[in-house]
């Protein structure tokens, strides 16, 4: 069995790949007269690592923002867990179990690692403003519960030593890791990573790749990621969508994409009509 069939199957390395988790149907996004995304369709299967690649300005981040609910496409439908998704605000989508990291780190610089990751638990907290502020009743039990989950994330990402350090004082590579931690703390069904390895050195990239694979393997989290580093993408992704000038020019396993003439042209630079 493989990705050619819609049924769940077990991948060669033992991971379970389920049915379709999210499907994009003919998405088009325009900003005024600029076409950012033109008629793109693809699906994300449960348990897979799905990469979106393409040259600068291809519309990758826009695509992620569409999935995330930050942009609303003018045309097309998004189906999530078997139901068509009505237009929603990003925070509503977060409640559906979609978490993300950002290309330019978006953490609270003055807050500690621990507190930053704790904010990822927001969607799981039920206590009201007053009980939270007074730390009274249910809020107290809830904090203990959530802190336990945050500590598991800290342990998983091996960042115990910076638990109490303000994030602004951390080096870039660690900040990226904290941001991943915050997304993981939300226990997402679908994790969106926007260039998780941008600006990292080789060692940091290897660490991050290992964490991404471990998240997918240990928790079965579905991951959609944008990445520039071809080597990394080809190594860790199950399937790759290739975009160029807002269009989809390739879709398939890394091997299929690598031999696709349209993809080679886009990366090596052939004149567009």
């Amino acid at each position, binding site marked *: 069995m493989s990705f050619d069939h819609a049924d769940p199957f077990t991948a060669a390395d033992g991971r379970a790949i389920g049915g379709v988790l999210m499907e994009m149907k003919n998405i088009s996004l325009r900003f005024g007269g600029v076409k950012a995304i033109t008629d793109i369709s693809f699906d994300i299967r449960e348990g897979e690592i799905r990469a979106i690649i393409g040259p600068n300005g291809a519309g990758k981040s826009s695509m992620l923002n569409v999935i995330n609910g930050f942009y609303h496409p003018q045309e097309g439908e998004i189906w999530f867990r078997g139901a068509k998704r009505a237009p929603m605000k990003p925070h509503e989508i977060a409640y559906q179990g979609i978490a993300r990291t950002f290309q330019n780190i978006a953490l609270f610089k003055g807050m500690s690692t621990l507190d930053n990751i704790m904010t990822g638990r927001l969607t799981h907290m039920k206590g009201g403003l007053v009980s939270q502020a007074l730390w009274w009743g249910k809020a107290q039990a809830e904090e203990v519960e959530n802190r336990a989950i945050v*500590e*598991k994330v*800290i*342990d998983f990402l*091996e960042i*115990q*030593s910076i638990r*109490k350090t303000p994030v602004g004082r951390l080096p870039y590579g660690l900040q990226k890791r904290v941001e991943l931690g915050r997304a993981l703390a939300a226990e997402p069904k679908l994790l969106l990573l926007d260039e998780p390895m941008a600006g990292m050195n080789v060692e940091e990239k290897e660490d991050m790749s290992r964490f991404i694979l471990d998240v997918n393997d*240990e928790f079965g989290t579905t991951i959609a990621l944008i990445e520039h580093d071809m080597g990394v993408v080809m190594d860790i992704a199950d399937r790759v969508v290739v975009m160029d000038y807002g269009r989809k020019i390739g879709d398939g396993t890394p091997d299929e994409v690598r031999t696709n003439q349209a993809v080679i042209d886009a990366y090596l630079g052939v004149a567009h009509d």
Partner: protein
Amino acid sequence: MPTSAADRLACDTVPKLLALNAASYGTHPAYREKEFGIWQSWTWAEAAEEINALALGLMELGLNAGDHVAIIGRNRPYFYWAMLAAQSNGAVPVPIYHDSVAEEMAYVLDHCSARFVFAEDQEQVDKILEVQGRLPGLEQIIYLDGGGLRKYDRGILHDYRELQNQGRARASDLQPKLDAEIAAQNGDTTCVMLYTSGTTGRPKGVVLSSDNIVKTGKATCDFDSLSVGDSVLAYLPMAWVGDFIFSIGQAYYAGFCVACPESADTMQTDLREVGPSYFFAPPRYFEGVLTSVMIRMEDASKFKQRLFKRAMDHAKTVGPKLLDDEDVSFGDKLKYRLNQALVIGPLKNTLGLTNVRVGYTAGEAIGPEIFDFYRALGINLKQLYGQTEASVFITQQPDGQVRADTVGVASPGVELKIADNGEVFYRSPGTFVEYYKNPESTADTKDAEGWVATGDAGFIEEDTGHLRIIDRAKDVGKMADGALFAPKYVENKLKFFPNILETVVFGNGRDRCTAFINIDLTAVGNWAERNNIAYASYQELAGHPDVLATIQAHVEEVNASVAEDPMLSGCQIHRFLVLHKQLDADDGELTRTQKVRRRIIEEKYQVLIDALYDGSAEVYVETEVTYEDGRKGSISATLEIRDAKVQPAKAVAA
């Protein structure tokens, strides 16, 4: 169940001590570990249950008495339990440095033909699987942290906690066998095997018996009156003999609590949270902490700086005296108390040393000013001298007799003797049984009467009985007049000055000593900046007359201190020069671990050595250097040679 001191003395193995602790100290904490941000703890009774379950699991898995069980991981309660569980089965635990590469592990695992291996996580399991093909004896791997191991072949891999559960399930039929095994063990049963790092050749497996460990534990606990109320932070490698003695030998005898840090990077934070009462660290740890304190003080406000300086100046005169129970005036006591409340107490707390009642350092010489700093804070920091073959303790400093330049008196039960060439020999209850599968080395090190050669040269001070280590025995020579020549002894004294980075002392077979000196660019450069001294290169700074004058003052100070020792007064430095380049491993002058390669330096700088001995005032030299990218170049310089004042030798006490 009430137990008496006699019961404790009757325990001749570690598993028996465990049973005793579970009975008499059942509700006292035995282990603590920070995990998921919280300190978890286990009482002696709980630890005994965990160990018993694991021991049953190992028995179920087919572990036999006499097998070797390798343990690879950082300090965690689970691995100390694994050692006890192996011992309970009559097997021999072999802790291995968890940062060693697969190659090194393969050698040790093969040499002791370990059947069972405890591995912390995927990283360690991967290393073992990498060399598995070469280890026919290896049968089972037990891992603690299953992260990333889900897809691995389950055949020989076992989960630590599942193994414990299997053991619990089989308790009814296997327990009697386990109890019988523990009861049958005695002082001759091998307790542990530790591989020495082996600076020369392959590592050797040092076999230590239960008698070695339990008797050493008893003697040294009594020496420092360690008891059930004490605690220690286990953060040094489990494969190192010191950790085994502190965290098992002494902890099991005294029944005190062993705390394990959350990770290697959080040690400093964890130390502060735990506040142990018993603490060991190598000199470079104390040095590093002191440096970071000083750097942070320099960034503090002027007011705080003055407060700190005044408090420390006073503490340095009073603190050590108070520790040694000497007379201190009431006013000074009061002032020290005040300092303690305002400055020293908070500082100690930040360093995690507030509760330290007994602190030890060992391994290499510690600078006197570093030593004095901690003693001034009121921390009872002492020195000990030991090695793996002695179950650590050869000598240690008793309370009230602490000095930076000795390593203390013979530990209880240890006999010392000094050979004609100055080499230190010892004989003690902790003396190792043998090197595993290496009778020649055993015979070379330990003679028929049980005397063990340390490889270090030293002498015993006549009036105090303290041992002083001067150098490695093979480096110690004789001067032309037959006096002892101990270069490292003098070099260490010189290197305690921050301005001096490296030095080489010559004098073997000659009538007097001379020295090459390397300045420390950071320290001297800093000084130059503060005094508006301009320089364009290392060479220029090294040759600056003011620098030479400073170094000369240092040398003369060292001469005065060397002259205090009748035996070593011949090692005073008569002439010295400051080298125009830093000694460098790239040029073959240092080893990769930054140790001086004497012979190579002697050959390379023959012209300089000749000049030191022929009385010339300066010497021209051209030296080949290797740049970092591998290119070669040469630098030339004219070096000034200075004479240093020497002190007349003190009369040898009759």
